[in-house]
């Protein structure tokens, strides 16, 4: 598997670490159901078999966090963008 880093170009997966699927928005600690919302946020996962929006860290390259859309069945990379500055749709 190779990931096309926006800074460094196409690099072997061994240079990166995966943080898993991108979590939903962090809940507001003040909201009424904050306790349940945080348990969901920290522990529960969709864990899809197919396209998965993930966060990866290019530790042995530019040290940037990346948003990677990757198919967990085929390992095909469907899109890569910088996590910094973008929203959750990669914009």
């Amino acid at each position, binding site marked *: *598997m190779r990931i096309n880093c926006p800074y460094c170009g196409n690099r*072997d*997966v*061994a240079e990166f*670490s*995966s*943080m*898993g*699927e991108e979590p939903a928005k962090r809940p507001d600690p003040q909201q009424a159901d904050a*306790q*349940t919302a945080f*348990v*969901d946020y*920290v*522990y*529960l*996962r*969709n*864990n*899809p*078999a197919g396209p*998965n929006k*993930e966060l990866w860290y290019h530790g042995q390259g530019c040290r940037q966090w990346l948003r990677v859309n*990757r198919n*967990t*069945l*085929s*390992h095909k990379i469907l899109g890569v963008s910088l996590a910094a500055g973008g929203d959750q749709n990669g914009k």
Partner: protein
Amino acid sequence: MKYSLFSLAANTLTKHKNWKPALVDAHPKAKYDAIVIGGGGHGLATAYYLAREFGLTNVAVLEKGAIGLGNVGRNTTIVRSNYLLPQNGVFYQHALSQWETLEKELNYNVMVSQRGVVNLFHSDAQRDAFARRGNAMRLSGADAELLGRDKVQKMMPFLDFDNARFPIMGALLQKTGGTVRHDAVAWGYARAASELGVDIIQNCEVTGFEISNGRATGVQTTRGTILSEKIGISVAGNSSMLAQMGGFRLPIESHLLQAFVTEAVKPLIPNVITFGAGHFYVSQSDKGGLVFGGDLDGYNSYAQRGGIYTLRDVVESGMAIMPMIGRIKLLRSWGGTVDMSMDGSPIIDRAPVEGIFVNAGWCYGGFKATPAAGLSFAHLIARDEPHKIAKAYTLNRFASGHIIDEKGQGAQPNLH
């Protein structure tokens, strides 16, 4: 039919042409008292104990492919109970004691070999940690022995004791640990369950649940709808997929774990050896191949195949303790999809949907658990209450804070 020396002799006389199939290839009925989804080691064991311990024989095991081709047939066959936390220690020690009598019980040779598991240590700090673990194991009823360097050297003279970076200073030994023939466990449980009247239905993929008024009443499958008031999910790496069908989420990520086998050589590795300074463990199969593995590839995957960089890392770790393996040829490698939970410990509990039960989160270590997981899951399904050895394996421990995190890694499954 009972397997024995007599049945072997009798069948030899008829040139082995009259052996009966080990299990009935069943067709789905419209309704069962209980359904177990997944014909891996755990699902088949669950069905067996439902029939044997709890008198439920109108039971079906639904397997999407053929039994024994999931993780139960892909693992590196190691059984042990060297855990630190009491919740795990007691559970896995129970499993180990079940292995000791399983062959007699199932009338099937699953090749239980208590050859010992040796965890090497390479620093003073690690010796202290292993001594503590050994004490914890003894408190949970397991056996543990701290070995000095000379004892290890006597047992395994071929190790690189004076490696400059990771000298071998000693080891923690669990004598009763060892290996069990993995796929034989699937066949053995399947045959015994089938004999007790359980329907083992292959090529029957579950594609959804029948749910009415918040209660599960059956499953949709590629071979039609099958009704049951009690449905157990035991699908290892596919747990989240089944949860999705039921409309809930699990504290689980599916990850990739690889295993490697070399060409066969004469008896070389007397037991199971693990490297303490990297991730590498090895044993030798009865055919003579060295069977070894290491870390997860590290990213979510359902692909059942992994990358070459993991192989490189595992082999480098192997070379650090056993330079002699540098000349052996690797024959095969494969991957399996493991259900990594958020604290590295399993879940045997009711699902958020009434009528559905979950057995999942076995990570890379659920093979050794098979008999105890089957017994506990059957207990839960039959009696609707947890077995005493599995009380801690609840889903709500993540909400209540009672997590069972052996390594203290937190909710990052690729680090467990």
